[in-house]
Every structure is written in C-alpha cells, then in structure tokens.
C-alpha cells in the first residue's frame, strides 16, 4: 500500500468512528427527550439517606449522595491498591517458582496457576466469602497468637481490623489475578536467553540473587506492559464486590440509582470514575516502564 492510500484509509476510519459516536450521542439525547428526562446532577447534593457498612472517612446517612459515592470510590481504591500489591507478590513469587530448580515448588506453582485460571472469578469470590470467611466461628480465634484474630464478623491482622467482606474481595481478586501475573512473569523470564541463567549459575551466584540481579532486570521490559493490563483487569473486576456485600463504588452507585431513578447520570459517573481509576494505574505503570527502560540504557 502506498503512502497516500494509507492516508485515505486513516481519514475514512476517523470519519467512521466520529459517525458512530455522533449517532450514539444523538440516540442518548433523543431518548432523553422522549422519556422526558433531562440530564441532571442535582441529586448529588441531596442527603444520601442510606448507611454504609464501611467508610474510610466519617460518613452519615445525612451526608450528601456525592460524599457517599466518594466513600464507595475510596473503598474501591483501597481494595484495588491492596489487591495490586498482594497479587504482584503472589504472581511474581509463583512465576519465579515455576522456573525454580526445586521440582516440588515448580509443581505446586503450576497447580495453583492451572487450577485458579479455570474457575470464574465470581465463583471464587462467592467461595471465599460464603464458604471460607463466613464459615469461620462467630467467636474470634487466634491461630497464630497475637498476629491474627479471625471470626466471621471480621479479621484483625496485627491490630488492623478488616471486614470479612473486604478480606474476601481482596483475597479473591489477588489469588485470581496472581495466577495470571504468574504466567506473565514466567513468560518474561522465558524471554531471557538461557545463557544468562547458565552464566550466573556458573559464577556461583545463588538462585535468588541471580534472579533478582541478572534475569529479572532483563525480563522486566517484557513483563511490564502485560502486567499493567492485569492491574487494569483487577481494577475492573473489583466491581464484583457487590456480590459479597462489600460497599465499593459500584454497590454505592447501585443504591443511588434505584433511590433517585437517575440511571443514565449514575452510569456516566461510574464510567468516569473507573476511567479515572484506570488512567491513574496506567499512568503509574508508564512511569515505571520508562524508568526501567532508562535504567537499562545506563547499563
């Protein structure tokens, strides 16, 4: 294809996209007129009128709906950030374990990845919540002394109290995403030429030191892009929290939509909030990506 032809194609595609978007916006406007509903966001400043089981900042049912939605957003953010950290730890160690010299470790890691990736996330969340956590006794017990107290009313880890809903969502998301991250990491490690492994082993470096200093730095450019899309998946999957009673952004929006009847506005806000969340994650990952690439040039 020559240059001008390619340019024409681009123009056609842009016009096509603009047309589809125009039609969609027109549909929304016309349908809003037809149903006699204009877009309105006044309801955001009215009292929410419902309680929330957990809120990172002080909240009462007489506070505004906007404040309630912010609590939901913060709850989402909380579980997403914690989930990303935990899933990364789990994924990286599992991914590395799959290339370990220890056969038992290799088998266990393969089993975990194989098993978890076969089961839908929603089922896993329901399992963690209704079977694992709500199956706990109602009186707290401490399997590890003062480190952790567990009951089906809540979990206290080193003095920090987590609700069982939060714990179930966090564990469900991390275990599920961790399995995918393990595959990403394994793929990244495999992209490093085997000569590099042999080189550090022949130098007498330990496995973990060689992995950290020799292999992983070379694998990072292959791992990071796929890793950031796993993070974005985790963020989006967090909306399943409503199934296990966690007051995340989607759960709070769900209540406000049915109480105000403002479905379109509610979904628009949801859309924007998730866009914002994912742009934050994406931006963070790009910074990381660039830093890694730059440090590679220095070597």
């Amino acid at each position, binding site marked *: 294809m020559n240059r001008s032809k390619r340019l024409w194609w681009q123009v056609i595609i842009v016009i096509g996209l603009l047309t589809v978007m125009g039609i969609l916006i027109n549909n929304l406007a016309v349908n809003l007129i037809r149903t006699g509903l204009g877009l309105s966001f006044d309801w955001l400043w009215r009292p929410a009128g419902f309680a929330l089981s957990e809120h990172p900042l002080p909240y009462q049912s007489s506070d505004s709906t906007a404040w309630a939605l912010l609590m939901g957003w913060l709850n989402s953010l909380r579980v997403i950030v914690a989930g990303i950290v935990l899933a990364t730890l789990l994924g990286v160690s599992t991914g590395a374990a799959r290339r370990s010299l220890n056969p038992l470790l290799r088998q266990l890691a393969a089993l975990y990845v194989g098993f978890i990736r076969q089961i839908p996330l929603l089922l896993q969340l329901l399992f963690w919540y209704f079977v694992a956590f709500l199956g706990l006794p109602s009186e707290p017990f401490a399997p590890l002394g003062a480190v952790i107290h567990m009951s089906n009313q809540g979990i206290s880890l080193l003095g920090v109290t987590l609700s069982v809903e939060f714990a179930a969502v966090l564990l469900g998301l991390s275990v599920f995403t961790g399995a995918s991250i393990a595959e990403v990491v394994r793929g990244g490690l495999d992209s490093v030429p085997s000569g590099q492994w042999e080189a550090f082993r022949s130098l007498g470096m330990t496995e973990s030191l060689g992995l950290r200093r020799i292999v992983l730095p070379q694998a990072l450019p292959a791992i990071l892009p796929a890793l950031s899309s796993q993070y974005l998946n985790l963020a989006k999957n967090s909306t399943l929290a*409503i*199934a296990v009673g966690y007051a995340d952004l989607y759960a709070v929006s769900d209540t406000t939509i049915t109480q105000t009847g403002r479905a379109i506005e509610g979904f628009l806000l949801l859309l924007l909030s998730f866009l914002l969340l994912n742009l934050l994650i994406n931006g963070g990952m790009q910074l990381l990506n660039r830093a890694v690439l730059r440090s590679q040039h220095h070597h």
Partner: protein
Amino acid sequence: MKVRLLALPLVSFLFILNGCATLGEGGSSRLDLIKRRTELRCGVSGKIPGFSFLQRDGSFAGLDVDICRAFAAAFTGSPDQVQYRSLTAPERFTALRTGEIDLLSRNTTFNLSRDAAGGNGVSFAPVVFHDGQGLLVKRSSGISNLNNLKGRTICVGSGTTTEQNLNDAFQAKGIDYKPIKYQDLNQVIAGYLQGRCSAMTSDRSQLAAARSGFNNPDQHVILPEVLSKEPLAPLAAGGDQRLADAMRWVIYALIAAEELGITQENIGNKLEEAQSRPQLTQLRRFLGIEADLGQKLGLNNDFIVKVIQAVGNYGEIYDRHLGPNSAVPIPRGLNNLYSNGGILTSPPFQ
C-alpha cells in the same frame, strides 16, 4: 474485495444504531402492540415463593404470575399468551423503560418517587398486595424488638427501598446499625444463615417466603415492628394512559368479582343467569352483556369473563398462593375485602 465485504455489515450496523432513536408515534399505546402480537411480555422476579417462583416443570407460579395471566386473558383472550422475564430489582425499571417488557408484576412498592414524572416516571396499577418491611432474627438470639439491634449488623438487599426504610427507622430511634448490602435476596439469606448478620430485612411477605425454605423455619422469628408501608402493585411505563387504564380495571375486576361472589367455578352459571335476566343490570354490565365497558378500555366487552375463567377472583388467587393451605401462608390482614376487615375495594363498574 475485503473492503466490500466489510462495508455492508458496517452500513447496516449504522442504520440499526440510528434506528434506536425515534420519538415514537404520538397517541399509540403499548396495548395495541400487545394485542397485535397476541402475547404479553411480563416482568417477574421468579425467585419469591408465593409471588413468582419457578416450578419443577419450568413454568412460573404465584400471585404476581396470576396477575400477568389475568392481564393476558384480558388483553389477548388467553391467559397462557405470556412470556415471562425474570428480572432483578435493579434491572426492572430499565427493562420497562427500554420496552423489553410490556409491564411489570414483580413485588414493586408503589411510592411517589417511582410514580412521578421527575422520578422513575412509571404508571402504577392498583395495589395487589399490602406489604410492610420487617426484620427476621434467630429465635435463639433473644432479640425481640428494634432496640435490641443496637450496633448490630443487618443484611439487606440492593436496589430496593429497603435500605432507605431501614435507615429511617433506626435514625428515628437514634440507634446505630451496620448494613451489609448484597445484590440478591439469595445472598442476603446466605449471609444471614451463615451468621454474618444478626437480622435480615425485607418485605414481610418475602421474609415469610424465605423462611418457608429454611431447614428449621420455627427457629426464626419476624419482629413485630413494621418499618414501612409497602403497597406492591403492577406497573407500566409512564405516559401510556390506555395501557394503564386497562391494567387498573383488570385489577379492580378481580376485587369486584370477589365482592360480587363470582368465582372461577360459578362464572358459567353467573353468565347464564345474567343473560336470562335483563333486570340484573349491574351483573350484565360487569360481564359485558350490556353496555360497552370493555370497548371503552380498548378491550373486548367480555374481558372480565375471560379473566375470571383464567384465574378466578382476587380471593381465589390469594388463597391459591398465600392462603393457610399454601406453601407460604401469610394471613390476609389488610389484603382482605373492606367488608371483611381489610382495605380492598373496587370503584363501580359503570
């Protein structure tokens, strides 16, 4: 070649998209559409025993379902011409507004925000079940009233007025509580039975229905406090007077038939009696032998006959699904005729 292969579906896709925005013909009613396709699309829950519950043979049964059947009998002539859609609480208004269903017969509370044009903007038919929100607790917990729930956790379902009612009731008493909100009633029940919450809240009818499925129903008690008025009514999308009127008078016909003592069993005799005795003008009007009440609604004049033949009068529907010998017995209470100490009554068929 490839380009041409792509172009056709693309262009047709654009046309279809564009077709999604029409201002609609003025004055047309959903009622005409239902009659033309001789089938009613009725939104139900499908998960509430006694109201709408999936049977072993794949059909639905319950009070809400019989109301759908009554509408179908009146609009199309046959109670079996119904396509049921199971809808969750948050889905129901969207399904109605987008026209996926013709009407909703799904434990929906009639209130101002839903009725008003500035709210959900739907049209409610008369109330078919007067309910109220209640709380279910374990007998062994020793909780006997609202004050005992101070600081406790309460399981509540999403997409309903229950969250607001719960909040209002506890706030009025100045008591703290912690709601755990799930999307679905089944999850609320699981959370409650697993011991996450000290109480679960929902309409008392739903609590009674849920309790009937527990292992030891008598180990659970419904607290005496009623947190709210929950008049449950069928509804249609707003701005369609003809459909709303037709629905309204089908419900009233069920109530009026009970007042007049007309049942599924004796409707044949009543019809013969009315035909042979011209002086029974009230009965003749009601059964469509005289005057044109049905026509005024855009229905056949004998629509009430079809309705009663299909499902019986209101009392018969109630007894079938919620009566003392049913699986989900709920005392009739407010849902009795005015003449029997309840609050049901029908305006005159004139």
